[in-house]
């Protein structure tokens, strides 16, 4: 099947679903109170996008996401590489890490609001707690799975500890870390949105919470769609970054079987 027919089928599926939904709401088969008409959702999105104050909300959510993401992944990589290299530290800290990771993050949101207020930082903190552990476990695994022969080779060639870190451990862990960076983006957004949803005065999560407060299902659906577009855009950026950073790995198509 070639790309054009696949694309045509995809569009066909979309048209059938949205068309059926629209017709259903118009004939009264679907209750618009629960499932607002696609055209109304479209109109809502269009009116938001046309309004400048909407971009303030997007900007705030984006700032929280990016800050939470950078701080969380930065701490996660540092801690993961450290504990990956130091077995004894890893063994000592293991129960604490497992315990902390077991806490459902949502319950932390009110505590962060208490500590950091209703502003930006309580949301960033929530995003950090979500992102940190994913990156942390991946970085630790990546460092531990360094090929021992490659490591011995580098040591015999005269690498000191810093050389090993820079030229062996980090690059070896890089593909693990990068794959976790992709997954973490979604979690950074989730952290920011939940934080906003539970208590804030701005952001996409706040928009959705407000629409919900008014029983405005159209607004909720529009918010959800905006959010998924938001995550897709960030993911696309990361995809490009990953391709740039890891040039040494065979890409999916040119992988050799042995």
């Amino acid at each position, binding site marked *: 099947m070639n790309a054009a027919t696949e694309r045509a089928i995809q569009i066909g599926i979309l048209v059938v679903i949205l068309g059926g939904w629209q017709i259903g709401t118009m004939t009264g088969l679907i209750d618009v109170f629960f499932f607002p008409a696609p055209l109304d959702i479209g109109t809502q999105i269009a009116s938001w996008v046309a309004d400048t104050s909407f971009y303030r909300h997007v900007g705030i959510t984006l700032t929280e996401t990016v800050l939470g993401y950078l701080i969380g992944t930065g701490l996660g990589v540092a801690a993961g590489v450290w504990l990956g290299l130091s077995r004894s530290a890893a063994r000592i800290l293991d129960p604490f890490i497992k315990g902390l990771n077991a806490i459902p993050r949502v319950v932390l949101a009110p505590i962060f609001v208490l500590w950091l207020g209703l502003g930006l930082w309580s949301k960033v903190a929530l995003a950090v707690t979500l992102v940190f552990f994913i990156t942390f476990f991946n970085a630790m695994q990546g460092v531990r799975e360094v090929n021992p022969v490659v490591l*011995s080779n580098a040591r015999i060639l*005269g690498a000191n500890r810093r050389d090993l870190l820079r030229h062996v451990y980090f690059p070896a862990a890089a593909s693990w870390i990068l794959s976790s960076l992709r997954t973490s983006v979604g979690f950074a957004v989730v952290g920011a949105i939940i934080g906003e949803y539970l208590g804030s005065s701005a952001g996409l999560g706040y928009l959705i919470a407000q629409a919900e407060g008014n029983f405005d299902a159209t607004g909720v659906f529009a918010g959800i769609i905006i959010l998924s577009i938001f995550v897709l855009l960030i993911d696309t950026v990361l995809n490009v970054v990953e391709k740039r950073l890891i040039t040494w790995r065979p890409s999916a198509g040119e992988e050799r079987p042995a």
Partner: protein
Amino acid sequence: MSAAVVRAVPQPPMPASPQAQPSQAKSMVSVDNVTMAFGSFVAVQDVNLTIKDGEFVSIVGPTGCGKSTILNAIAGLLQPASGSITIDAKPVKGIQGNIGYLFQQDALLPWKTAIENTELGLMFRREPAGVRREKAMAWLAKVGLRGFEHRYPHQLSGGQRKRVQMAQALITEPQVILMDEPFSALDIHTRHLMQNELLRLWQEDRRAVVMITHDLEEAIALGDRVVILSAGPRSHIIESFDVDLSRPRDVAEIKLDPHFMDLYRNIWASLRGEVEKSYERRD
């Protein structure tokens, strides 16, 4: 396959002087009563081996007898359970700076290109970027990889990777060169080219070399001495044969030399029993 390797095959006529250098040279590597164990499993026991400066020693023995283990001990990657190893009269404690090790397995850094891998040893020695790039280019050309400088290991064939590994191990001009089955991944033709190339490089600048191989012909054709290890466990050296064939040698031609064939028969008579023993223990 580049022409750079082919160039080495016709050897320049030189006066043959058997055993010219090594006989009166000082001892470079000395392995004294070394026993290597993994937990309660004793892989090799009471191994004694001396390699003189500029001497090329081949080690042969049945698979799994402990050849790589001995090499790892000389490299300082493994500690002997008992006995001692010295290099250039200094006891080996951990990794030394003056060793080149050609690993049996793939050991290139997958995230570095051929040229970056080759210059690694110089980079760790803090040589200026320009100098090391130039030397690395020259070494890649020596091993016949001109034009492959910017390929990543996954874009090279198995034989090409081995050659990058050789350039990487030799570029720092180590005093002792350890090679673990360096040519076993290569086809017979490439193998001859690489063996001749290795002999040429070694002839230019003689170092102490310990080469492990499964191939007895290769052991004799390249070595000044062939050391036979017994079947494991508790493997030890059973015999050591001097190879008094004149140098420089051409590996393809020397196999037709009657004296080579005599040596082969003698050494094989000794090795054969061990190989059979190691197979009997299989089941």
